[in-house]
Structure formats: structure tokens, C-alpha cells
């Protein structure tokens, strides 16, 4: 096997009749920061959600650190792995969502602790120390006992990132994490992601923030109608798009 962190081969995903991913290939090395851009409906988010099996997929394979995700293929038949096994594999990745999805009945610290206690089987005291460390890292140490409803959108998203990252995932998935935020709250979240990138975290980001993608990514993937339309380093992609489609897309997006 190659030493890739993530290896997606010929990924196909259908919702009933509609094929949303039509054979996507993608590899990623440890420490890579890849931004996925493209118009809505191009399959960006679906691709991300296949990686942690929030979506089933009908064809192709996804491997993380050489381990096949979600399905076992033996002797030509393909079987979904057992739920427990999939849960274990999901913990290999961390995900931050557009709508934050914090557990509303738990404080910021408890949100971060839940996975540590239930999945990593950490003692509560130990989990609290880890949670506080990560909340401190995202600049929310003094808000650790607040509930999600008492936090701004930007703060909620930072807690959500802390919750994911505290699980020590091999790969972080960010699904349009700034799309639901008021403009003045976007930067605090992007700053947290930039800091993680600087620390060498491997990340896959679906984003509409073109300047951010340009600044933070080691590579950019442009998704178009369920396929990868173009990929390369951000400089080439944004300054010299090779395909008509990407040029068109960039013209309609704001780069600020």
C-alpha cells in the first residue's frame, strides 16, 4: 500500500436515480490541507460525508491510512461493515458542520468531553483537562461552562472544532463551517483553522471562502457535476485556471 493518509478510488454515490458522485479519485498525504470548491450541487459536501460514512456510497473505495472505510469487499461481494466497526472508523476523522450541531443540553466543556468519555473511555477528570486544553486553544477557556445557546455562532463553531479535534483524529473534515456565520464572525473561525493547519493537521475543507482557500491550502480541488473538474496548487488554480468551467466559477465567486 502507498503511504497516503487518504485514498479515494472511483467513488460513486447515488440518491435513488440521481448520481451525485460519478467516479471521484483523490489522494492526500499526511499534513495536506485540501480545499474543495465548486458550485452548490457539485458533490463537494457529499464527498466529505462519504469519508466518514454519514453517507453510504455505492461504488469505489475510501481508505484512511490503508484501512478500507465502511465496506468489506471479499470475493466480488461488497458488504457494509458492522455498525460498531464503522463507529470506530468514524473516530479516525473529525468533522465540523455548517450548522455547528453542538449538543444544546451540554456546556461547551461537556460537548468536548462526551466523545472522550464515551468513545475514548477516558475518566471524566482526565477528559475535562483535555477539553479545557482544546477550548483554550480555540480561545474559549473562560466560556467552557456556557451552553451553546449562550454563545455566538463563531464561538459555537469554535467549540464544535474543539470537540472534533480533541478526539485526536487523523484527518479533519470541514463542511462549509463559515457559511452560517455573520460576516464579522467568520474570521475568528478561519483563524482557528489556520492555526491547526500550521500545526500540521491534515484537513479537507469544503468552502466558499476563496481567499481563505487560497491562503491555507496546499492543494485545491474544483468539483464539477459529480467529478473533479480540476485540481492543483492554489496559485495555479486561482490565477491560471485550465478549464472553462473553473474560470467561469471563479468569475462568479467573490475573492475577498
Amino acid at each position, binding site marked *: 500500500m502507498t503511504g497516503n493518509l487518504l485514498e479515494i478510488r472511483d467513488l460513486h454515490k447515488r440518491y435513488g436515480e440521481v448520481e451525485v458522485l460519478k467516479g471521484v479519485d483523490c489522494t492526500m498525504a499526511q499534513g495536506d490541507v485540501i480545499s474543495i470548491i465548486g458550485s452548490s450541487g457539485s458533490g463537494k459536501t457529499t464527498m466529505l460525508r462519504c469519508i*466518514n*460514512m*454519514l453517507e453510504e456510497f455505492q461504488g469505489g473505495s475510501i481508505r484512511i491510512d490503508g484501512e478500507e472505510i465502511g465496506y468489506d469487499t471479499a470475493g466480488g461481494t461488497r458488504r457494509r461493515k458492522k*455498525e*460498531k466497526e464503522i*463507529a*470506530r472508523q*468514524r*473516530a479516525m*476523522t*473529525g*468533522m465540523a*458542520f455548517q*450548522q455547528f*450541531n*453542538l*449538543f*444544546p*443540553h451540554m456546556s461547551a466543556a461537556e460537548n468536548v468531553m*462526551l*466523545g472522550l468519555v*464515551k*468513545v475514548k473511555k477516558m475518566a471524566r477528570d482526565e477528559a475535562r483537562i483535555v477539553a479545557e486544553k482544546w477550548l483554550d486553544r480555540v480561545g474559549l477557556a473562560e466560556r467552557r461552562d456556557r*451552553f451553546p*445557546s*449562550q454563545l455566538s455562532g463563531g464561538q459555537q463553531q469554535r467549540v*464544535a472544532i474543539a*470537540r*472534533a479535534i480533541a*478526539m485526536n483524529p487523523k484527518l479533519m473534515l470541514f463542511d462549509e463551517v463559515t457559511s452560517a456565520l455573520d460576516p464579522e464572525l467568520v474570521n475568528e473561525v478561519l483563524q482557528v483553522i489556520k492555526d491547526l493547519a500550521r500545526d500540521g493537521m491534515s484537513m479537507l475543507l469544503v468552502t466558499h471562502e476563496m481567499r481563505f482557500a487560497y491562503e491555507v491550502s496546499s492543494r485545491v480541488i474544483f468539483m464539477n457535476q459529480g467529478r473533479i473538474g480540476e485540481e492543483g496548487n492554489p496559485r495555479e488554480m486561482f490565477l491560471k485556471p485550465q478549464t472553462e468551467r473553473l474560470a467561469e466559477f471563479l468569475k462568479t465567486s467573490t475573492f475577498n
Partner: protein
Amino acid sequence: MGYTLNFSAVWRSFDQLLWGLALSLGLAFVAIAIGCVLGLVTAFGLLSKQGALRHPARIYVTIIRNTPILVLVLFTFFALPQLGIRLGKIESFVSTLAIYSGAYLAEVFRGGLLAVPNGLKEAGLAIGLTQSQIRNSIVMPLMLRNVLPSLSSTLISLFKDTSLAAAIAVPELTFEARKINVESFRVIETWIVASCLYVATCSVLAALLRQLERRMSIPR
């Protein structure tokens, strides 16, 4: 009207009413406790993707909710023995009320479960929780908060339904009141006192449930 209220006969038998009330509360408590478990299981059944779970749950809820509880009480007590199932009056009533409350609570719980956003379950999955961990740590606590306001009115009406046990001579509050009424002929006084006991008990229950609701509410 020349009627003068005279409560002395009722006061003389007041402890009888209180024992009746205690039994009413006991019947309600046991039946509703069983009903909650039954309702919860049924609610998950109603929301299941598997027809083998969903259909029986739906049939159970539909039949029970469309049958008057008095008919169910009489059926269990008088008809089941004909079929070889013989229960004492209290057991018979408690099981009827449990099955009845299960069907109502199932609908309440179903609504509460539906109101838990899917994104929260996905967030649980994404950190590696199993389905049962998500159910216990995320879905159930949130469902409970969602249903508390409507749960309290359901629980109170189920408590009041214990009065139907009088129909099969279970000595609860209504039965005791009727006994005092027959023995003393103080019809108005007896039923005023019995009503007051029901109102007071329901008010206390409502206050307790409001307290619980306040305690469990998410800070804003």
C-alpha cells in the same frame, strides 16, 4: 333552595377518602411507570424504518387510542377471564391503564423524538459514538426536554382516569366517595370534597412537573 350544606358525615369518613386517594396515586404511579416504558419502546417502533416494528406499533396505538378507556377496563376485567386470563381487580385495572397510557405516551414521545434535529445525531456519529450511545446521551435527554410540557397534561389526565377503576370496584377515591355518598346521603358534600381532592392532587402534580421542567431547562 332550602338545602344546607353539612359536611360532618363526609369529615367523619375523610380518612376513607384519603386512603382512596392514596390508592388512586398508587394505581397511577405503577400504571404510568409501565406505560412510559411501553410508550418509549412503541415510539421508537413508530419511527422505525422496519415495517415489522412500525406496523405493530401503529396498530397498537390506533386500537387503544380509538377505544374508550371504560370499555378497555370492562373488557379486561370481565371478558378476559372468559378467555382464561384471570386477574385481580387491581392488577386488571393497572394493566389496562398501563396499556392505555403506553399508547398515548407513545405519541407524545414520538413527537419529542422527531423534534431532535438530525444534525445532532450526525455530530454524535462523527465523533464515533454508536447508535445506542447517541440514543442515551443525546436523543433521550433532548426528547425528554421537548415533551415535558405536553407530558404533564397527559400524566394528569391519566391520573384522573384512575377514577374509572370504580367501575370494577377498586376502592380508590371515586369508589370511596360513592360509598360515602350512598351511606350518608350527603350527595353534594361528598362529591364537592372528592372533586377538591382531585383538583388539589392534580395541582400538586402540575407544580412538581413544572419544577422538573424548570430544573431541566437549558440555560439561555
